[in-house]
């Protein structure tokens, strides 16, 4: 998996590159938006990590121009913590996720991995997470190759969690993911479904509850 790092600060760029290399990625660094566009056009990348504070043309403009050219690869933004407006506009412009500086390299790697996984799932319709494998087209889940017996709603919940792996998924989002037009689910019903999914996947992945807020799926042992 190949990542393009767009960051003008060599210290950060190098740190991110080393972190990604350690995690088994291939990573290249460019220092400005122009070079980033050229690199993305010339070669295939699975993800770009883009700093918002780039010289001349900033990261937000880069995201806008990439999305305008229908470049579909996942984009991970690096921002300063106190600029909420930057974060919001980054997501509005088509970035997929963001991290604020200073960040933990481990977290950056985990987020990058989740983004790439999601993008690949959209392309190949198969999603691997921990010891779970989800066939998005056939709506089937496997642990260590064995098919899981999931109801339609349980499947929707597992799919929703795995697609946002590593991130907090609110109860409201799960509710809207499993509800259809005919009936509305209560928050309590969501809890019931989640605990059933949890029981069925066993040790293959870990669904942790964030009390009062939602859930987060994690790879086993993490």
């Amino acid at each position, binding site marked *: 998996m190949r990542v393009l790092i767009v960051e003008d600060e060599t*210290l950060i*760029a190098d*740190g991110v590159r080393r*972190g990604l290399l350690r995690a088994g990625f291939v990573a290249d660094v460019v220092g400005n938006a122009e070079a980033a566009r050229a690199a993305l056009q010339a070669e295939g990348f699975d993800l770009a990590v883009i700093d918002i504070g780039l010289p001349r043309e900033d990261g937000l403009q880069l995201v806008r121009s990439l999305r305008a050219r229908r470049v579909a690869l996942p984009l991970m933004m690096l921002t300063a913590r*106190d600029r909420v407006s930057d974060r919001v506009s980054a997501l509005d412009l088509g970035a997929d996720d963001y991290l604020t500086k*200073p960040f933990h390299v481990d977290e950056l790697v985990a987020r990058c991995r989740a983004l790439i996984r999601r993008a690949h799932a959209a392309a190949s319709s198969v999603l691997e997470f921990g010891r779970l494998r989800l066939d998005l087209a056939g709506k089937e889940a496997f642990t260590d190759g064995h098919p899981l017996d999931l109801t339609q709603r349980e499947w929707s919940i597992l799919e929703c969690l795995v697609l946002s792996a590593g991130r907090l998924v*609110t109860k409201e989002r799960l509710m809207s993911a499993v509800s259809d037009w005919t009936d509305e689910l209560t928050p309590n019903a969501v809890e019931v479904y989640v605990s059933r999914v949890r029981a069925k996947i066993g040790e293959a992945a870990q669904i942790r509850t*964030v*009390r009062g*807020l939602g859930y987060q799926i994690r790879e086993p042992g993490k």
Partner: protein
Amino acid sequence: MSRGSDSPSIRRRLLALLLIPTAAIAALATYSAYRTTLAPFEAAYDQDLLDAALAVAGNIEVGRGARPAISLTPDAVRVLRSDSQDSIYYQVSAGDGHFIAGDAGLPVPHQRIRNPTFTDSTYLGEPIREASYRVMTRAGSAIVTVAETRHKRSLARRQLLQSSLAVDAAQLVTALIVIWFGVGFAIRPLGRVERQLAMRGPRDLEPVTTEGAPTEIRSLIAALNRLLRALQEAEQAERSFIENAAHQLRTPLAGMLAHLELLAADSGPEQRERVDDILDGGRRLARTTHQLLALARSDSTLRTIATLDPVYLPGIIEAAITSRLAAADRAQVEIGAQIEPAQVRGVRWLLEEALGNLVDNAVAATPPGGSVTLRCGSVDGCAFLEVLDTGIGIPAHERAQVFERFFRASNTRAEGSGLGLAIVREVAAIHAAVITLDAAAEGIGTAVRLTFPRMSSPD
């Protein structure tokens, strides 16, 4: 605005400038009216004197030696001399000045050529008015003079003066009252501008509106607005300086930390501990830097933001928990939320910053196995944001001090700069929120709550 007695007052100045000329003009008017009214009075009295003189003249006859002579009966003289207030004198003399009859000492102007002649003179130590008439008789010319003391004239004059002074004083007082209130009314727009400025918060640097302001103070308002604009620009410059400094400090720190993390993962057990120590120090440095910059920015925000936007509190809690989930896991502290719908008017990044600091403190103060709960909701229409922990708590006598910059509770083990709660206090001040600090429900741990003012409109 203080109106001290020695500070210049527009009202007093206008009063002085208007009243002194008005009074002078009134005095002149009084004087000239007095003079004008006096003339007919004098003329009437003079006419009476002349009539008396003519009556006397009618009695002149030709006497011995073909000289003019007069014979007045005692009754006629009594009638002539009768007057309630004044003494009447008369004299008849020949054209050459020869005394014929009457009061001999009365000064008679023989040289006057006009006929009749009125003169002012003195007789027996009193001022008198005389009317002299020259008549031609068959016995030659004779001069008849009738005089009177000025008592009734003076009385009339006095009465006239008094009444016209009374009228003019009344006019002057009326003018004074009209000017006093008129000036007050005229300078009332100044008061409006004053109130408009007085109602402002310290952070409102928007220009003062000239709408409805009189022409005379528009230039004053324009000067004020130039000052406000300059202040705004200075704030802007300060803010961009802070933002620039933030970037300059944060970026190398982020790079250093990334490398240290990698180094820690790569190093053997012996170096590992030392690298971890450096990493911890670096993270503290990054955090303190961030907090200082957040404080500086909130300081300038306090002075510059004019409007607060609606902020949905559950969103803030979700963001705070999402960004601190990993840290809570590392500290083995369970983190959760109790969310009820609540909205406030505020600055989103500041609220996130404040809540983030409260959560960091709560996680740091809670031993492994404990929990931290973020709550929001509203009580009596007032939204609140609260962080509860099951940690070591803050000694009651230190609770007032914890919001000071760089203060750290005596029982804390956790590393920290002591800036976090200062930021919280700053943010609370910007949002007019009240901070309460208490032991959590079961008497253990800490509960910090921000209670926001009731929102005026539901939008």
